């Protein structure tokens, strides 16, 4: 356990080295969040009745999404180092460590997500909760909801990390990471509700999208927070998160097992 904490510590320290990047990220997220909320507001004003979510809940969704972007987007941040290690063959050093590669990458992935989000989350939350209703971040309806939000957020983090591990391991076979990365980021951005929240999807397609692993990423916690997702559908969503987490870890480990058997270290 101690070694995983050390990964976390090192990741965190590393991220502290890039203060300007964090600052730029925060500024960009304010702009993006503001723009998205205004666009949704225009849409809301034309016909409030056909708006599938409460407007205040939508605004909270967007602010949380911006605050947690570094934690919940599928590929980004330090993932480049893993792709680079696989492509250049530097992965040999990681294979020379007395740790399971999966556990090491997984904890690294989770650590860097948390470390990067911590720096950016706080300013976004503070500023957005000062904004006038209905444009700001609302408080969760009650303490129980907030607790469930934290639970589903933790699960979403693990599901997202497990999915990136699948992407990592696919790279062992494709060598170049560009294709896998492009496909998985565009699919996940759309299907996890990164562009528009899932309730805005057309009927039929929405039900289908809700079964996919992507829906277990940011979609669930961000909607649990505002109470948009509650009761039986919420319980189902959290159970689905657990199931996909389990499956994705299995798939990732199976791929890794196969990959290591035929691993070819690139570059001599």
């Amino acid at each position: 356990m101690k070694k995983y904490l050390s990964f976390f510590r090192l990741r965190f320290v590393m991220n502290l080295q890039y203060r300007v990047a964090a600052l730029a990220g925060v500024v960009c997220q304010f702009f993006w969040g503001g723009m998205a909320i205004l666009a949704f507001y225009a849409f809301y004003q034309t016909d409030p009745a056909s708006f599938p979510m409460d407007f205040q809940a939508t605004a909270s969704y967007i602010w949380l999404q911006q605050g947690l972007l570094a934690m919940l987007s599928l590929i980004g941040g330090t993932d480049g180092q893993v792709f680079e290690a696989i492509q250049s063959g530097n992965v040999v050093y990681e294979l020379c460590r007395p740790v399971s590669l999966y556990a090491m990458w997984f904890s690294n992935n989770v650590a860097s997500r948390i470390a990067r989000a911590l720096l950016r989350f706080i300013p976004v939350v503070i500023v957005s909760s000062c904004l006038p209703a209905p444009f700001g971040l609302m408080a969760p309806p009650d303490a129980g909801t907030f607790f469930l939000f934290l639970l589903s957020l933790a699960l979403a983090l693990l599901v997202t990390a497990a999915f990136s591990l699948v992407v990592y391991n696919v790279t062992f076979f494709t060598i170049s990471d560009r294709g896998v990365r492009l496909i998985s980021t565009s699919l996940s951005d759309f299907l996890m509700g990164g562009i528009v929240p899932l309730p805005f999807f057309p009927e039929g397609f929405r039900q289908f999208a809700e079964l996919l692993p992507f829906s277990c990423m940011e979609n669930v916690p961000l909607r649990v927070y505002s109470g948009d997702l509650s009761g039986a559908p919420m319980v189902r969503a959290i159970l689905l998160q657990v199931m996909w987490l389990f499956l994705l870890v299995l798939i990732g480990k199976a791929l890794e097992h196969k990959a290591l058997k035929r691993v070819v270290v690139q570059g001599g």
Partner: protein
Amino acid sequence: MIEVSHLRKTFRVARRDEGFGNAVKALFHREYEEIHALNDISFSIGEGEMVGYIGPNGAGKSSTIKVLSGVLTPDGGECRVDGRVPWKQRVKHVAQIGVVFGQRSQLWWDVPVVDSFELLRDIYKIPEATYRKNVRDLTELLDLRELLRTPTRQLSLGQRMRCEIAASLLHSPKILFLDEPTIGLDAVSKLAVRDFVKRLNQEHKTTVILTTHDMQDIEALASRVILIGKGKILLDGTLDDIRKGNEQIDETIAHLYKQYDI
């Protein structure tokens, strides 16, 4: 200590001729060639031995090191290091060995070297007292005092290599694999690395296997030399067995490569 018998490893390499037309053709039909990186390799190395593993580029040196350190799974043959099969018991095995790949870096790029050391301490579960003693000894022997607090990316190659070697020895491994540890180093750094490896072998009885293209490394360090070419072992003996008269060591080796047509 190390027993290797009939080891084989084949790689498939995609080949194509130059030019745009051939690149497009290769999109649809790819020609592969089988490269026998290791073709029936056998040798054994005893505890505390220091062995130079030499051969021209592409002979299979690094592949052997990677098999011995549990990274590559061979296609056939057997290998036991200290009773363990490296690729089957990878995690247990690598806890007992140290590896330096001269062309790669194991230190975390953005943070001071000492942060990397501390992470390695936790990964290898090195007891605090042992860790402190090893860092103290290595700092002194490899002259790292000024370097430990510097971010890796700001070290020169020679400085970094000294830190890399120290990083591989923090957990007091019984076997050390050095894959071209002196590549790109200046004379002073080369001498420092050689002296250090020699002392390590003498004082701690660490078994050292060293691949290099620098024959002075071999001259300074290895009592025993294994020559590999085209995936086969061609010669296993001492440097004196190979040397003829007063010839320079580089010429001797060049002759040898020619003689074996490798």
